[in-house]
């Protein structure tokens, strides 16, 4: 899939997904636009109601050993451009593969 020139016309959700996926080698990546739940509240009043609030869930080995604050900062840094162009808030769930699967199957059956 060609990305040349495509970034500008991709939705913010797609851009977020692309940036996080490539940088974090995520095994799980969910990006949901929940802007409609926040339309009209004081801090976004007057701006477009579109693409302002997102829920992001990432499972990445790169979060291993990082505090929650550090993990969230990593995500914010990766999305700096988005945050400066209308992305208003992010709810972030950032886990490592070990945290989401605490009891890995010792007998690989598949």
């Amino acid at each position, binding site marked *: 899939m060609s990305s040349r020139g495509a970034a500008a016309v991709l939705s913010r959700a797609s851009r977020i997904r692309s940036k996080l996926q490539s940088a974090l080698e995520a095994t799980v990546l969910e990006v949901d636009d929940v802007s409609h739940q*926040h339309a009209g*509240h*004081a*801090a976004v009043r007057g701006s477009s109601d579109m693409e302002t609030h997102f829920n992001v869930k990432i499972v990445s080995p790169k979060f291993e050993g990082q505090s*929650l*604050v550090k993990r*969230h*900062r990593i995500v*914010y*840094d990766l999305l*700096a451009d988005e*945050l*400066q*162009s*209308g992305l*208003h*808030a*992010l*709810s*972030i*769930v950032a886990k490592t593969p070990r945290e989401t699967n605490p009891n890995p199957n010792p007998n690989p059956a598949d």
Partner: protein
Amino acid sequence: MSWCSCAKPLTLQLQLQSRPASLIHSHGGGVTVTTSSMSIRPSSPLVFTHNFHFQPKLKRASTSIRCSSALTPQLKSTLDKVIATNKVVLFMKGTKDFPQCGFSNTVVQILKSLNVPFEAINILENDMLRQGLKEYSSWPTFPQLYIEGEFFGGCDITVEAYQNGQLQELLEKAMLS
């Protein structure tokens, strides 16, 4: 990395005047900071007497300073003192009695349910404060919770820590110290 969230570039035409600026937050047991002395006196409402009455001009980058820091030395010093003086500080949207954002409200309700005294500062009242705090905390969103002088996290982190008990533990330790 320092944050400079300049989605709305501001023309920096601050004029420091002695007349009081708009009240950022009114809360008994807060601090007063003046431009002249920067002294801290307890039991006064938090007032930034920089002239924050200026109207930010929402011009595009070509005619204004695009990414100048909103975190002036005075603002940084003020924030240092607020965070050092109060064990729990919440920079939020709205006030603790009238939050204006779901995320800020969530943190307020958590802190209230734990009966923890906290200083709540409304960042919606002052755009320089709002932008400066993003740089100060290296955190681009609100709310921002500080415990014992250290940045703790935003809403997600606070909720997770509340659910697993770490928040209660940390707050108890803070209250006892």
